[in-house]
């Protein structure tokens, strides 16, 4: 320690405190816990159809939040996260169907696959800058799809079915799917929030705002980007495993569907990049739009695309950005407000 710190500590201990929670945050946290419990106990209040719908919404939220971490904080604009969703989905089917491992245990085991794949992929991809990185991630997802289409282990292009699930009753399956959904939200949203509030949250936001300055202030930007990439791969893998477990079917085009990247980008751009609130808002908007207007097919996608374009041009911070400019009421506050009586 240098003389600066000695001088600072020589000043009679100032009773400096830091305030972190806000009223809006307390209310939102209570609602979030209620919602999480409601998801976990879905079989006792919702029909199988509703559970399927909510499961889909949970997958959107999880994938969008992972994309938000990647693009919103680490500056890694990936359009190929479906690679990890498909990889984990296939891992689940192989473990449960081919090797006879308990499917619910297999969901967790399948997460090893995206984690292991993400490491060498990052070392290949991180040399690419900006748009080249994006194209690289897309190519990787396409390669995964082609490999799956030609790999006898996963039944090549014909795909696989999760027949082992028929040994469980519909109710048992619903209970498992509901618990998995709650777990997925806890890990992806709760985990992100915990990360943002931690010491590493400081580094993440600093990296988002100015990576050059962050590096000159002691933040290991390249390691942080790597860790975010691996974490996002695992998070997307979890969403993939849960989604395809509910589908009971997987084949290369569905497993590595680029639609997931589009959905994640739409949700985060509309909701507000770099915020958890934005992901929730964007996911709800997409979910509702998909229910109501999905039947219009191509026209519906054109409208979604135009909306994303308009937001990108005129409201870069998305809906949450517009809201938070007007009302200072974060749902997931991670700010550190200094209360310094000595000033």
């Amino acid at each position: 320690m240098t003389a600066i710190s000695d001088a600072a500590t020589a000043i009679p201990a100032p009773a400096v405190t830091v305030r972190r929670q806000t009223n809006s945050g307390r209310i939102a946290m209570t609602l979030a816990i209620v919602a999480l419990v409601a998801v976990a106990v879905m079989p006792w209040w919702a029909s199988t159809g509703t559970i399927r719908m909510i499961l889909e919404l949970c997958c959107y939220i999880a994938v969008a939040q992972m994309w938000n971490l990647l693009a919103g904080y680490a500056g890694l604009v990936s359009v190929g996260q479906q690679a990890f969703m498909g990889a984990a989905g296939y891992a689940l089917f192989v473990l449960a169907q081919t090797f006879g491992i308990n499917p619910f245990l297999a969901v967790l085991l399948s997460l090893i696959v995206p984690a292991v794949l993400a490491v060498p992929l990052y070392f290949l991809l991180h040399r690419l800058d900006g748009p080249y990185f994006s194209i690289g991630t897309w190519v990787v997802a396409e390669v995964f799809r082609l490999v799956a289409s030609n790999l006898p282990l996963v039944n090549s292009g014909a795909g696989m079915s999760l027949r082992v699930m028929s040994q469980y009753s519909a109710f048992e399956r619903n209970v498992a799917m509901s618990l998995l959904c709650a777990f997925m939200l806890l890990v992806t949203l709760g985990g992100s929030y915990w990360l943002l509030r931690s010491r590493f949250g400081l580094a993440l936001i600093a990296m988002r705002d100015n990576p050059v300055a962050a590096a000159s202030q002691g933040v290991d930007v390249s390691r942080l980007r790597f860790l975010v990439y691996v974490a996002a791969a695992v998070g997307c893998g979890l969403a993939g495993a849960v989604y395809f477990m509910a589908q009971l079917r997987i084949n290369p085009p569905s497993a590595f569907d680029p639609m997931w990247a589009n959905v994640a980008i739409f949700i985060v751009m509309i909701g507000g990049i770099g915020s958890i609130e934005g992901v929730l808002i964007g996911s709800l908007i997409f979910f509702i739009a998909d229910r109501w207007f999905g039947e219009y097919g191509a026209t519906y996608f054109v409208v979604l695309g135009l909306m994303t374009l308009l937001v990108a041009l005129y409201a870069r911070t998305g809906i949450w950005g517009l809201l938070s400019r007007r009302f200072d009421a974060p749902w997931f506050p991670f700010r550190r407000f200094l209360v310094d009586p000595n000033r």
Partner: protein
Amino acid sequence: MDKNVLLEVRGVSKSFGAVRVLHEVSFDVNRGEVLGILGPNGAGKTTLFNMISGDLKVSGGEIHLAGRALRGEPPFRRCKMGIGRTYQIPRPYSGMTTFENLLVAAAFGGGRSEKESYAFCAAVLRECELADKANRQAGALTLLDRKRLELARALASDPKLLLLDEIAGGLTDDESKALVGLVRRIRDRGVTIVWIEHVLHALLAVADRLMVLNFGERIAEGPPAEVIALPEVQRVYMGIEA
């Protein structure tokens, strides 16, 4: 090597393609010293800082900090080794508050725990006259406050060597006097300072030594009064024909 030398720059060169920005510049900075760097725009001053802080790689030559070669060390590790810097064009974390900006430097560069950083950063903010803007969004600060934030944030990383890149530009006389007082206090605590500055009277009030760069070469170095009086410096820097 001399134990008293903190920063040793040996024959450092930098070229961007065919453009030569710095050519074999050498100098030492002693512990506890304030070295002022003068030079017209484009002389290579900021490039020199970028190579010391690791933002740019050297094309040739060596830089040592306290006897340790810096070659191959990334910027974040150089910060942890004790190099703190400000940017000429401020680079705040605009989405964070002023206080949080300092916390990043204290927690990562300074290696403190988050809790320890709180009181320390509050003290640095008071010292740099930013205490009343602690919870203000850094992106909404005025240019003057952003420059103060650059300095405060560099201090929060607890540097042994502080690189100041034009922090006095645009200040009023009173503000620049206050800044000189602050730089002196930092120096008095044993922090070694290298200061690039166009505001000559501010620099002359603190610098123990001056170095003048022109077109990427060192053209003079020594006690401030002597360096300023050199005919070549007068011609190059102040446009006075001797």
